[in-house]
């Protein structure tokens, strides 16, 4: 049993690592579907066009915004690791992690604004 384990007060960097992992998992689930949709073009543009029309649905736009957010989060989380592993240690990491989260959020909002 894990009753003795550290169960709360996770720090910002742990949350960043979890966001990186979970966004990666979500993207891994999404990618095969994305490839299948693009593969519709094999049958000619009509099928792909039919699918694109469906994506005008606001719920789908929201989902796409979520995907942009996940991609941005995952990349920024990965950059966090590359910085830790290859550059001299920076004490300001927690602030950078929070800034990265905000940047990802802004990217998603920008997409929503562009696409709607």
């Amino acid at each position, binding site marked *: 049993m894990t009753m003795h384990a550290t169960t709360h007060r996770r720090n910002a960097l742990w949350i960043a690592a979890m966001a990186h992992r979970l966004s990666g998992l979500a993207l891994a689930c999404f990618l*095969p579907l994305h*490839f*299948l949709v693009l593969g519709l073009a*094999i049958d000619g543009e009509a099928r792909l066009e039919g699918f*694109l029309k469906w994506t005008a649905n606001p719920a789908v736009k929201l989902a*796409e915004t979520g995907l942009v957010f996940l991609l941005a989060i995952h990349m920024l989380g*990965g950059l966090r690791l*590359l910085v830790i592993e290859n550059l001299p240690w920076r004490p300001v990491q927690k602030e950078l992690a929070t800034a990265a989260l905000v940047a990802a959020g802004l990217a998603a909002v920008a997409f929503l604004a562009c696409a709607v």
Partner: protein
Amino acid sequence: MINIRLYVLQRATAMIMAPLVLAHLFIIFYAASRGLSAADILGRTRGSIGWGAFYALFVLAAAAHGSIGLRFIAAEWAGLRGRHLDVVMWSFGALLAMLGLRAVAAVVLP
């Protein structure tokens, strides 16, 4: 469960993909804000060696990167070990590579 070889490959594909992801995000924004139709998109990609190369590279890097990442999750959260991890990693990598290259062919081949 992960050794230095897989580690180096995952970091390398990550670094390759960073600029590709940025470019892809720009493309997504561009297509969404212009409301591009399938005909518009395919008109740009069909017969293009440039788009073919860009996305083929992206697909292969993503297949390697994603399958190594999934290996970690399979080991740490699903408790898989040894050969099972290799099976998960290789099958997911193969799935992404095949579906991805098929998609690239779908939009690039004239």
